């Protein structure tokens, strides 16, 4: 444990708030609704030891062990989305038709290592 300084809870892998505005990316003239949505993103460390709260995979546990043995050669596991949810987008296509489309994996609900 002396080799692994304590990680504060705020640095741990978890979802962070991110609002995506379609006008910010210049898509407001063809996307009818929503004008934006809370997409979120994952950020934070996956430290040793990995706890249950960090939604760690078996692979992440082993990678953490190898990382602790060889920090230079093997990185720490990544903090990534492990549960996402869909949204529907209403938009105009190039022929002025109105389209309602269901998109999977648009909102980050949970993160894990």
């Amino acid at each position: 444990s002396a080799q692994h300084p304590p990680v504060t809870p705020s640095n741990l892998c978890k979802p962070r708030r991110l609002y995506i505005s379609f006008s910010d990316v210049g898509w407001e003239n063809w996307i009818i609704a929503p004008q934006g949505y809370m997409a979120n993103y994952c950020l934070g460390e996956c430290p040793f030891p990995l706890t249950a709260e960090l939604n760690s995979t078996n692979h992440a546990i082993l990678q953490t062990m190898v990382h602790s043995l060889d920090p230079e050669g093997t990185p720490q596991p990544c903090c990534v989305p492990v549960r996402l949810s869909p949204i529907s987008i209403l938009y105009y296509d190039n022929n002025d038709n109105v389209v309602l489309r269901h998109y999977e994996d648009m909102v980050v609900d949970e993160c894990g290592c």
Partner: protein
Amino acid sequence: LSLQESLLLKSLGLSAKPSPKSPIPVPSVLWRIFQKRKMLPAPNKDPADACRVEEFNVPGNIIRVFADQGHFIHSTQPPRLLCLQKRLYFNLSVLEEDESLTMAQLEVKFSHNSYHASSQRQVFELRLYRSSQMVLRGVPSPERGRKLLVGQSFAQLHQSLLFNLTGVAKEWRTHGRNLGLILEISVGGGDAASAPTSEGLRNVCANVDAFLAASLLVVTLNPQQCGAARSRR
């Protein structure tokens, strides 16, 4: 940025950033479905239903409403009791090859909200024909270039009429020959005899002048963008 944007659009199933020219109002049915989905908490939804349109009980993850691009047909000698004759055309070429069509529903809308007192019991006949190539090549007799799909009577002009055209739309895609439809509305029932003069017929047909628009709602399923397909990978 443009390269990044085109890659992002591609991942959303779009070949390029759309630039609508004369956008139509959002159809109420799409707005209702959109609002309903927004209210539903996604985590509680069964993943198996993710690519199903509950409102129509068909598989699908894309719903489009196509505006009619056909024109009115003005014959020099229209059939005696004919009030309206119009070609309907919906450009389905925007559907991608991966998409399978699961539903197509034609809506014929009228703008009337009230009836003329004298025509409260007026009955009309609606006929919907499928055009064949012969019509577009200008064969004089339109009867030879069309096939009757639907024939029905109606009296209430204030509401829209819905027709299931799933089979027809599938054939349009399969054979790549979408030559549209022909919509005819004529005076029907026992009133035909009571409106023998052109003046009388004009009065009876006045209600049909409230014909507003036709649109085709199409549901398709793109399996590449559904959870079921991804979990198999």
